[in-house]
C-alpha cells in the first residue's frame, strides 16, 4: 500500500507541493507578524473586510454570467465585460437626466429601480444580440473559434460604445439618500455598501432558486449535463441557451448599476478590469458552478482588500497595495494547486472537459 503511494508521486507533484507549502508558509508568517505588530485596530480590520465583501459582491454578480454560459456552452464569454459596461453606461444618461430634474433627490428609491431596469434591459439586449450574432452560428465549430469571436465581439462593443457615448469619463450623480453610514460597535458600514451587498445577495438567491426549482432551471441543468440528450428529451436547447444569456446579462446589468453607484464613474473601458477579475472569481470558485462563482467573487474581493495588508505589512513590504493583483492571483494559484477545479468545482468528466 505504502509502496504504491510512493510510486504514484512524481517530480512535478513534489515541486508543486514545495511551491504551495512555501507560499502558505510566507502567508502565515506575514499574517502573524502583521497581527503581532498591531498597527491596525479591530475597527480597521472590520473595514477591510466590509470593503472586500462589497467589492466581492460585484465580482460575484459578474462572475455568475461567465459561469452560467460556461456551464451550458463550455465556452468563455469574453464579451461579458462589455455586457456589464453597456448597461451602466447607458443608464448614466437616465441618471443624469433624473438628477437634473431633481427626481433622484425626491424619489431616490424609484429612481434607482428605474436605473436598474434600464441597465438590466440594455445588458440583456446586448447579451442576447451577441449570442445570436456571434455565438449561435458557431455552435458546432471547434471550441477555439467562439473564444476568438468572443474577444472580437468584446472589442467591437467597446468601440461601438465609445463611438456612441464618447471616450470621456461620465460622472454618475451622487444619491443623497445613499450617503452616510451605520455603525454597530466596531463595525462601520456605508449605506452604499449595504445596498450593494443586499442587492447582490438577493439577486444571487433569486438566481439559485430559479435554477434549482423552476422548470426552466431544470431544463438549463439538463442542457448543461448533455445538450444532445436534453434535445432528445424535448427541450428546446436554443431557447434555453438564450435564457441563460438573459439571466447572466441581467445580473451583469445589475452589477453595472451597483458599480456605478459605488464608484460614480463610467467609461467605455470600465468593463475590462472587473471582467477579468470576475472571470478569475469564476475560476477560483469552480467554473460552471453557481454557488462557486458567488464564493469565488467574495473570496477574491477579500483577498484584494485584506490580503496585501495582512500578508505583506508584517514582512515590511513597502506600498503593499500596489501588489494586490499579485496577491489575488497567488491565491488563485494556491487554490488551484490544491483543488484543480476550483473551490466548489466538480471533477470534470471526459465529455465536459
Amino acid at each position, binding site marked *: 500500500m505504502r509502496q504504491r503511494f510512493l510510486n504514484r508521486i512524481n517530480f512535478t507533484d513534489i515541486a508543486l507541493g514545495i511551491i504551495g507549502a512555501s507560499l502558505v508558509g510566507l502567508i502565515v508568517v506575514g499574517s502573524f507578524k502583521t497581527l503581532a505588530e498591531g498597527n491596525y485596530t479591530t475597527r480597521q480590520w472590520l473595514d477591510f473586510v466590509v470593503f472586500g465583501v462589497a467589492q466581492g459582491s460585484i465580482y460575484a454578480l459578474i462572475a455568475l454570467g461567465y459561469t452560467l454560459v460556461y456551464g451550458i456552452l463550455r465556452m468563455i464569454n469574453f464579451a461579458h465585460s462589455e455586457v456589464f459596461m453597456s448597461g451602466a453606461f447607458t443608464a448614466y444618461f437616465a441618471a443624469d437626466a433624473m438628477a437634473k430634474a431633481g427626481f433622484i433627490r425626491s424619489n431616490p428609491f424609484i429612481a434607482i429601480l428605474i436605473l436598474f431596469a434600464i441597465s438590466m434591459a440594455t445588458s440583456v439586449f446586448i447579451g442576447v444580440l451577441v449570442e445570436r450574432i456571434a455565438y449561435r452560428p458557431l455552435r458546432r465549430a471547434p471550441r477555439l473559434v467562439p473564444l476568438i469571436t468572443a474577444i472580437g465581439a468584446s472589442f467591437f462593443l467597446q468601440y461601438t460604445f465609445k463611438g456612441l457615448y464618447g471616450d470621456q469619463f461620465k460622472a454618475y450623480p451622487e444619491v443623497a439618500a445613499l450617503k452616510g453610514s451605520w455603525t454597530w460597535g466596531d463595525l462601520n458600514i456605508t449605506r452604499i455598501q449595504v445596498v450593494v451587498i443586499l442587492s447582490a445577495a438577493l439577486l444571487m438567491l433569486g438566481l439559485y432558486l430559479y435554477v434549482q426549482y423552476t422548470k426552466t432551471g431544470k431544463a438549463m441543468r439538463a442542457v448543461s449535463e448533455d445538450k444532445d440528450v436534453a434535445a432528445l428529451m424535448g427541450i428546446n436547447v436554443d431557447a434555453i441557451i438564450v435564457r441563460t444569456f438573459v439571466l447572466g446579462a441581467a445580473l451583469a446589468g445589475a452589477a453595472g448599476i451597483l458599480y456605478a453607484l459605488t464608484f460614480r464613474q463610467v467609461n467605455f473601458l470600465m468593463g475590462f478590469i472587473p471582467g477579468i477579475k470576475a472571470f478569475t472569481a469564476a475560476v477560483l470558485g469552480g467554473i460552471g458552478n453557481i454557488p462557486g462563482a458567488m464564493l469565488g467573487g467574495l473570496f477574491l474581493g477579500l483577498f484584494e482588500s485584506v490580503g496585501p495588508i495582512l500578508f505583506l505589512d508584517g514582512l515590511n513590504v513597502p506600498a503593499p*497595495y500596489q501588489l494586490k493583483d499579485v496577491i489575488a492571483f497567488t491565491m488563485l494559484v494556491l487554490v488551484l494547486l490544491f483543488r484543480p477545479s476550483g473551490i466548489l468545482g466538480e471533477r470534470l468528466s471526459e465529455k465536459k472537459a
Partner: protein
Amino acid sequence: MKRLYTMLSVLVLASMLLAACAPATTEAPATEPPHTEAPPTEAPATEAPPAFECTDAIGCVDIAPGEPIHIAWIQSVSGATAALGQTNVNGGQIAIDDKGGELLGHPIQYDGEDSLCNAEGGQAAGTKIVADPTVVAILGTTCSSEARAAMPLVADAGMVMMSPSNTNPDLTNPDHPDHHDGYFRTAHNDLFQGRVAAEYAFNELGFTSAATVHDGSPYAQSLQQVFADVFTELGGTITAQEAVNVGDTDFKPVLTTIAAGSPEIIYFPIFEPEGNLMASQKCEVSGLEEVSLMGADGLFTSGFPTTAGSCAVGMYMSSPYVAGDAMAGFLEKYNTAFGEGPASGFAPHAYDAINMFFAAIEQVAVVGADGTVHIPRQALRDALYGTTGFTGLTGNLACDENGDCATGEALAVYQLSQAMVDGSEDLVASTPIWQP
C-alpha cells in the same frame, strides 16, 4: 484540378498587383532623407543658385518652395488623459494661427499621433513620427512616461521635442539615462512643483504629518518623493508612502491603511480616473473625515471636480497659473477657435513651445534663392538651448543646457469649491489661493 486553377489565378492576380505597384515606387523621388547633402530638390529647371551645402553634424531638413514646414505633436488625445493632450495640441494651434499659418513663406503642417499616456503609446507614436524625415520639431509629450519611451527615438532622428506638460525631473537631469539631447520643456520641473506643494502644506497650512500615494508612473513616483523629501526636510513627518495601480477602482483599503498612520494631509499627484476615485472615496473611510487632500497638475482638469464629487471640496491642487493681458488675449482666441476654454492648465505652455520653435527656426534657417528653406538640425538644437529672454505667456523663458525652459514663476496652489463640484464654476479658469 479546380484548386490548381484557383491558385494559378491568385498568383496571376498577385503578380498583376505587384507589377502595378512596382514602377510607382521606383519612380517617386521619395521626400529627401535628412542626412543627404541637400540635393537640389526636383524644382522646375533651376538655374542652380549657389547650392546649399549641409554641413550640420546631424543633417538638415530641406523644404522646397510650396512644401510645408512640418511640426508634429505626440500627445495623449484619447482616453482618460485626453483633456491634457488635446488642450496642448490646441494651445499649439493658436500659436500657428497667430503666425498666419506660415513660416518663412512656407505653410505650416501641424499633425501628430496619440500616445495614450503610457510608455508603449509613447514608443509607438515616436516611431511613427520619426519615420517621417520632413518633421522639423515635435510638440510632445503629454505624460512623462511617454517622453521616456519616445525621446531616445527622437534624439536619434536628430529632431527636437518640446513638452508643454512633462514635469518629471529625470527628463532634464543630465546624469539620468532618460535625459537626451534635443529635449526641452516649457512645463515646470517637479523638483519645483513638489517643493511648492510641500512648503504650502507645511508653512501655510501648518500641517506636520502627511501621507503620499503614487500610481507607479514616473511622474507621480518622483513628484511624491520630492514632496516627501522636502516635507521631512522642513520638519514634518511622512506617515506612509503608498502606491496603487493604474486601473484600480477601489481605493478604500489603501486609504484605510493610510488612516492608520493618521496624517493631516494626503498628497496624491496621480491622474484621472484613479485620482477622482480616490478623492471621492476618502469620505467613506473612517478616520479620514478631517484629513485634507492635495493633488497636482495631472488632476487639474475641468472635469475633475464633478467626477470626484462633494468629498473633494476643499482639496488643494498645485498647477500652472498664468495671468496678464497677453494671457487674456490668448484665452479669447482659444475660446473663439475651439468654442470653449482650455480644459487643462498647459495650453499657454504649448503656445510658448511652438513660438520658441518658430523663433529658433527663423534664426537658423537658410533660405535658398529659389525659396527652398534649409533647416540644420544641430543648429536648431543649439539655438533652442541658447534661448534667453523669450517673452512668453508663461513668463520670461530661458532654456538651460539640460532643456528646462520654464522659470517656475507660473505655478500656484488652487482649492476646490462646492461650485466647481456642482459644475457651475470652472476649476481651470479659477483664481489660485496662493502663489509661491
